[in-house]
């Protein structure tokens, strides 16, 4: 028998804005918190109503096993996240997970995290779990955003002892330009492993650089999903070996070489 997936009507414990249109929601979900691994996600939906119809896939920002809760960081972009944002503490949402694949442990002694926009949350969760390991490891976090106001998760990365380097499109903080501009120097002169999550153009660039730099690279992808559990086949991406992989099930974390980045 395959392992059961928890489907909960979880109480919203906390819900606050951390940057313009960026919210962190905390859900009372002990069963999900206990099993959650960095890179994984949950499906979230209001319990009532059919418009918007589909749940939203949100990656796990933090899992507090002892406290029995999970945190999700999301940006309000459309009807689904708008409805989610309206859930005040005390209300409940339907949530199921944890779902999908997780980041694998690094091979070398340096970890380079590359996050863009709302791709940052799973990298924060990963940095926290890596910091909890009793293995000496250097963690460099390269974080990109449109501008200073939309940077999220920076304090948590620093608390997890990550060396944070920032790039913004408008130069309002850190280097002006793409976050991937920071990547070659960050992997230099060390056995590094790259973990990336963010917009598809950024992931394509990271995959290309990871190959050029001959550095192991894992990338967490995003795709529109109806079910999140592997049934709808709506979230597929082209595999290098032909055919398609489901982002929800074979992913969201993929090895650099398993995806056909040219046709994605």
């Amino acid at each position, binding site marked *: 028998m395959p392992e059961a997936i928890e489907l909960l009507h979880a109480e919203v414990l906390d819900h606050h804005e951390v940057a313009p249109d960026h919210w962190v929601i905390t859900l009372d979900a002990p069963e999900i918190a206990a099993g959650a691994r960095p890179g994984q996600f949950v499906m979230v939906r209001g319990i009532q109503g059919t418009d918007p119809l589909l749940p939203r896939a949100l990656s796990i920002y933090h899992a507090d096993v002892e406290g029995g809760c999970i945190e999700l960081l999301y940006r309000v972009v459309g009807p689904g996240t708008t409805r989610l944002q309206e859930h005040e503490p005390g209300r409940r949402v339907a949530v199921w997970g944890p779902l999908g694949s997780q980041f694998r442990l690094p091979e070398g002694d340096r970890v380079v995290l590359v996050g863009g926009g709302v791709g940052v949350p799973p990298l924060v969760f990963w940095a926290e779990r890596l910091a909890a390991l009793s293995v000496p490891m250097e963690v460099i976090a390269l974080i990109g955003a449109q501008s200073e106001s939309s940077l999220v998760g920076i304090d948590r990365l620093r608390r997890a002892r990550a060396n944070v380097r920032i790039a913004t499109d408008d130069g309002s903080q850190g280097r002006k330009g793409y976050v991937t501009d920071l990547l070659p120097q960050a992997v230099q002169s060390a056995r590094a492993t790259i973990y990336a999550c963010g917009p598809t153009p950024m992931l394509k660039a990271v995959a290309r650089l990871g190959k050029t730099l001959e550095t192991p690279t894992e990338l967490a992808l995003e795709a529109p999903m*109806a079910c999140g559990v592997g*049934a709808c086949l709506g979230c597929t991406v082209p595999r290098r070996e032909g055919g398609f992989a489901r982002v929800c099930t074979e992913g969201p974390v993929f090895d650099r070489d398993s995806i056909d980045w040219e046709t994605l």
Partner: protein
Amino acid sequence: MELKQSARPNLSVTVAGMELKNPVMPASGCFGWGEEYARFFDLTDMGALVGKAVTPRPRPGNAGVRIVETPSGMLNAIGLQNPGPEAFLRDVLPRVRELGIPVWVNVSANALQEYVDLCGLLSSQPGVSAIELNLSCPNVGRGHAEFCVTPEAVMDTVSACRPVCRTHLIPKLSPNTTDITALARAAEAAGADALSMINTFVGMVIDIDKRRPVLGNRTGGMSGPAVRPIAVRMVYEVAGAVSIPIIGIGGISTWRDALEFLMAGATAVQVGTASFFNPRAIPEVIQGLETWMVDHGVANIREVIGAARVPTGG
């Protein structure tokens, strides 16, 4: 000795001689082959298992965006992704027939002879209780008909499959037609044992920023609660036009929705898109029907089949 009266209502129905312990099953393409949903509930609680369509050869599915949300619904253009009949017989069927509930295999093809061959192959397998013939598929070798939306195309396809089909044959009708009762009558005349209805409505969503259709395939099949009233109307009409059983499909998310279809004349129902946004939709529909029967003193679900049908004046 006195037998105790069971308080549990009877949810069992018969579809063309096939006993189902309750009238609720998944709709093809919305449930994989059950392996994902076995992580949420006991699959053997369902009336039957209806799996993802099998095509003559493996199909990788469509490139590009495959799904898009619409008001109370969604469009999909998956492209019948499936591993083909060999992999189905080797990897899937041995597992699902162990469940002990009827297994229906949805069959889809591009040409008449392919339908016939696939129907012959799959209907003769032990553990296959019915072939659901996906008639809403592009181009069944008639050249002029992009979809099986004319009575002639339905008649041709069902008639060709009937002699080779060694189990129940259940055509699944497209709603993308002018008069669905004509398709239903053609299927019945060609020897169908029952009808599944309806498949999705062809729709489109435009990305106004890119000035292009959102879906890679441009068009997609629309499903979800938004289509339900049209589906109920079609079931109601067809129930008055044929005497074979109807499996009602179209936006069923709750037990109330299922009751609408049963009262319109369906003998059983399929739950599709709802499983995506509520993985426990199917067991909740079954449980809800049972609770409603207890609350309303309905001992047998068959009492409600067609209950909403009113005689046309004349």
